[in-house]
C-alpha cells in the first residue's frame, strides 16, 4: 500500500480500494460508505413517496374526483406507506447515521461485522426492488394500505404478494443491522469508555438494535404466513378458509408497535447529541435519558393492543393495553424535560441543526400528547381510524423521526462530506418546511375529531374546510423540502471545502477525527477518561 493511499491519512471518500467508480461504493465494507449508500437510497425514495403524498393531498383539496380515481388513490396511499415505513423510517437514522457514526463515537475502526453490514444494505436494496415489481407486474399495484390487513389483502385482485415479500426481505436487513450494532457496542468500545461514558446516540442505537432483533422476526413470520395462505390456501387469517383476521392484527402490531420505537429512539438519540453541543452545556440528566431509553424499548413491546381498541378484544385486554400505553408515555416526557433543562442557562448557538432540534421538541410534543388521546379508551373509540390518527403518527414519525433526521443531517454534514452547506438557504428551507408541516397536519386533528375516517378518497362536504387548509400546507411543506434538498445536494458537490475537525464545538469522538474521516477513522484508538458532554473549560 503506497503512502498516498494509506488507511490512516486518506479520507474515506478518496480511498482507492479494489474497485473503481460505482463498484467502489456498492461493494465497500466501510461503514461510512455504507451509511452514505443508505442515505442516497433514502433521499431518493423519500422524494418519490413525498410526491405521492402531495398527489394525495391535491386529490383531497375538494370532494369528488380532482386529479385521480379511487383505485389510483388507494394504490398511492399504500405505496406511500410502504416506502415511508419500510424504506425510510424503520432503517432511518440507524442505517445512515448509526452506520456512519456509531463506530466513530465509540472509538472503533468499523462495525463488528463489516461484510454483514454490506449484506444488510444489499438485502435492503433487493427488498425494495421486489416491492417495486409489485407496482408494474400482475393485476396492478397493491391497494391494501401498508398494514396488509386480512382478509382484504386476500380479497383484493391486486398484486399484494411481491409487496409483502419485499417487506419480508427488508426485515432481514433490519435484523442483521441490529445484530451488528449490538455486538459492536458490546465488544468494540474504546478503552475507558464504560457504559455510562457512552454518548446517548449509541445508547439509543443499542435499545433500537434489540427491538430490531427481537421484534422483526414476528413480522417476518407473519408475512410468510400470508404468502403460505395466498399460495397454498391454508386457512390462517382468512375467515373464508376458517382463519382468524384478528390474529393477523395481533401479529402485525406485535412487530409494528415496537417498530415505532425503532423509528423514534434513534431520533431521540440524535437530538440528545445536538442540544448539549448548541447549548455549550452538558446534557441534563444523562442517566435519566439512558434509563428512559431502555424503559421505552422494554415497555414498548407490551402496548400493541392499542391499535385494536375497536376490533372486538375482551374488555380486560383493552384496559390493560390502555394502562400500559399510558406508562410508556412517561419516559418520553422525561426526555423532553431533560432536553429543555439542558437549554436552561446554556449559551445557545442559533444555527441550523439547533433550529431543527428545537422544532423537533415542539412537534414531538404534539405527537406525544395526541397519543394520550389515542391511549385512552373512551376517546380512542371516537377517533380510531380517523384523520386524527393520521395526524398523530405523522407528528411522531415525520415530525419526530423526520425532524431529527434533518437535524442530524445538518449537524453531521460537514463531517461526512468535508464541505459546508449554505446556512441561509438551510434556515429558509427549515422555516418554510416548519410552517407547511403544521398547516398540513394540524387540521387533520380537527377533521378526525369531527369524524372524518382515514384512507378516504372522497368525503362529505362538511369536511371540506379542513381539507383545503391541509392540502395547501402540503404544497408549502414540499416547497421547503425542495429548498432543503437542493441546498444539501449542491453543497455536497460544490459547497465550501472544510477540513476543520470540530465546526460546532462538540465533545464526542467524531469531532476529534479528521474531516472527512480517514478510512480507519482513528490513527490510534483513543483512551476515554471523561464523559461525552463535559463542556466546562
Amino acid at each position, binding site marked *: 500500500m503506497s503512502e498516498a493511499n494509506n488507511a490512516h491519512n486518506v479520507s474515506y471518500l478518496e480511498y482507492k480500494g479494489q474497485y473503481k467508480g460505482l463498484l467502489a461504493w456498492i461493494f465497500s465494507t466501510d461503514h461510512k460508505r455504507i451509511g452514505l449508500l443508505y442515505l442516497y437510497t433514502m433521499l431518493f425514495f423519500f422524494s418519490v413517496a413525498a410526491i405521492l403524498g402531495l398527489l394525495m393531498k391535491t386529490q383531497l383539496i375538494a370532494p369528488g374526483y380532482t386529479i385521480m380515481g379511487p*383505485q389510483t388513490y388507494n394504490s398511492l396511499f399504500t405505496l406511500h406507506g410502504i416506502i415511508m415505513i419500510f424504506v425510510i423510517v424503520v432503517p432511518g437514522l440507524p442505517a445512515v447515521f448509526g452506520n456512519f457514526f456509531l463506530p466513530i463515537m465509540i472509538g472503533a475502526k468499523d462495525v463488528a461485522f463489516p461484510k454483514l453490514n454490506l449484506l444488510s444494505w444489499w438485502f435492503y436494496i433487493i427488498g425494495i426492488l421486489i416491492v417495486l415489481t409489485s407496482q408494474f407486474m400482475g393485476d396492478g399495484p397493491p391497494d*391494501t394500505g401498508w398494514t396488509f*390487513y386480512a*382478509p*382484504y389483502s386476500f*380479497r*383484493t385482485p391486486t398484486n399484494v404478494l411481491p409487496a409483502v415479500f419485499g417487506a419480508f426481505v427488508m426485515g432481514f436487513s433490519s435484523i442483521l443491522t441490529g445484530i451488528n450494532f449490538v455486538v459492536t457496542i458490546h465488544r468494540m468500545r474504546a478503552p475507558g469508555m464504560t457504559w455510562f461514558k457512552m454518548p446517548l446516540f449509541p445508547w439509543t442505537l443499542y435499545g433500537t438494535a434489540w427491538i430490531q432483533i427481537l421484534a422483526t422476526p414476528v413480522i417476518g413470520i407473519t408475512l410468510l404466513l400470508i404468502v403460505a395462505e395466498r399460495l397454498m390456501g391454508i386457512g390462517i387469517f382468512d375467515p*373464508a378458509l376458517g382463519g382468524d*383476521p*384478528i390474529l393477523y392484527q395481533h401479529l402485525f402490531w406485535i412487530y409494528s408497535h415496537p417498530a415505532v420505537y425503532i423509528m423514534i429512539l434513534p431520533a431521540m438519540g440524535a437530538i440528545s447529541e445536538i442540544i448539549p453541543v448548541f*447549548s455549550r*452545556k*452538558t*446534557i*441534563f*440528566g444523562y*442517566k435519566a435519558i439512558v434509563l428512559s431509553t431502555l424503559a421505552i424499548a422494554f415497555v414498548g413491546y407490551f402496548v400493541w393492543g392499542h391499535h385494536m381498541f*375497536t*376490533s*372486538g378484544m375482551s*374488555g380486560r385486554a*383493552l*384496559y390493560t393495553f*390502555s394502562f400500559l400505553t*399510558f*406508562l410508556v408515555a*412517561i419516559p418520553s416526557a422525561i426526555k*423532553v*424535560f431533560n432536553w*429543555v433543562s439542558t*437549554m*436552561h*442557562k*446554556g*449559551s*445557545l448557538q442559533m444555527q441550523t441543526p439547533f433550529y431543527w432540534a*428545537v422544532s423537533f*421538541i*415542539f412537534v414531538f*410534543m404534539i405527537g406525544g*400528547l395526541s397519543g*394520550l*388521546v389515542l*391511549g*385512552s*379508551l*373512551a*376517546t380512542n*373509540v*371516537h377517533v380510531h*381510524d380517523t384523520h386524527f390518527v393520521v395526524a398523530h403518527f405523522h407528528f411522531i414519525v415525520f415530525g419526530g423521526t423526520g425532524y431529527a433526521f434533518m437535524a442530524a443531517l445538518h449537524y453531521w454534514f460537514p463531517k461526512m462530506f468535508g464541505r459546508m452547506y449554505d446556512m441561509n438557504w438551510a434556515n429558509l428551507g427549515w422555516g418554510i418546511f416548519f410552517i407547511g408541516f403544521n398547516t398540513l397536519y394540524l387540521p387533520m386533528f380537527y377533521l378526525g375529531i*369531527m*369524524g372524518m*375516517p*382515514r384512507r*378516504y*378518497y*372522497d*368525503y362529505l362536504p362538511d369536511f371540506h374546510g379542513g381539507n383545503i387548509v391541509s392540502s395547501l400546507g402540503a404544497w408549502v411543506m414540499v416547497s421547503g423540502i425542495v429548498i432543503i434538498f437542493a441546498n444539501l445536494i449542491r453543497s455536497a458537490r460544490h459547497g465550501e471545502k472544510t477540513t476543520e475537525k470540530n465546526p460546532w464545538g462538540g465533545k464526542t469522538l467524531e469531532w476529534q477525527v479528521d474531516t472527512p474521516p480517514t478510512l480507519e477513522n482513528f490513527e490510534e484508538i483513543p483512551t476515554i477518561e471523561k464523559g461525552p458532554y463535559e*463542556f466546562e473549560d
Partner: protein
Amino acid sequence: MNSGASTFVEGVDNAFIFILGISFFFLIGITLVMILFLYRYNEKKHPKAVQNAGSTKLEIIWTVIPLALVMGMFYYGYVGWKPMKRIPDEGVEITANARMWSFSFRYDNGKVTDKLYVPKDTAIILNLNAVDVIHSLYIPAFRVKEDMVPGLANNRMWFEPTKLGSYSLFCTEYCGLQHSYMHTEVVVMEPEEFWTWYADTTGVALPVEEGADLALLGRQIVESKGCLACHSLDGSTIIGPTFKGAWGSNVPVITQGQDREVLYDYEYVKRSIYEPDYDIHRGYRAGQMFSYEGEITEQQIELIVEFLKSLNE
C-alpha cells in the same frame, strides 16, 4: 359535533376535555419556556453556559407528576368507555350487515333498510356481521365505533340515542375501492313514530300497485343494496360487468372451469345474485361478490329485472 346525541357523549367528551386540557397546558407551557430560553440564553446575551449535569429531585418530580396525570387520563378514559361494553339485556335488536360497499339493517320483523332507523331514548343493540372483509361501524355523533369482522360470532355493540335527527354513519375500516362511499345515516325517531314505521312492513313484501313504475322500483333496490358500487350503468367497468345493455345478451362465462355462453335472463340474474361465483363472467375475478341470499328477495329480483330491461330502451 351534535353533543348529547347519545348517552355515551358526556363520558367520552369529559375524557377529551381532561386529556386535551392537560395536553394544551403542557404544550403551551413548555413551548413558552423554550422560547424564553432561546431569548434569554442566546449566546449574545449569555456567552458563558452555567454547567448543571442534572438533579435527581427534578427527575423524580417530572416522573411522578406526569405519572399521576396520565393515570387520571386512564381513569377518565376507562369511565367513559365502560358503559359501551355493558350491553343491556333489554332493547331493540337490529342486525347490521356490512359488505363491500354498503350497509344494510335487518329488523326482527324481517324489515330490511339501508339507513338505520332507531327510536329515541331506547337501548339499541346491533348484531354486527360482515360478509366479505372487515368493516367498522362508526357514528361520530354517538361516539361509538366497532369493527365488523367476517366470521366473528356474537359481535355486538349498543347505544342509546337521546336526540332526534339524522346523523352520519361511516365505515372506518378501509375495505377497498369504494370505501369512502360506504356511509349512510342513522335516523332517530320518536318511539311512537318508530313503532308505526316498524309495523309498516311494505319493505318486506312489496305490494306492487297497478300501474306503478316497476323499473323505477327496481332501480331503487339496486341503489339501496349498493350494486352500483361495482356495476356501472354507463358501460364502464368498475369491479364487475356493467348493467348497460346486458339484458338479453349472450354472456361468455366460466362455469366450473368450463367456458360457455349463457343468456342474460331472469335465471341468470337470480343465480348471479344468490350464487355469484357459479358463473364467472369471463375477464372478471371470482370471489369479488358475496351472495345476497336472504338480503334480496325473489320478488325484488323481478323488479331488478324490470330495471335491467329498461336500460336497453
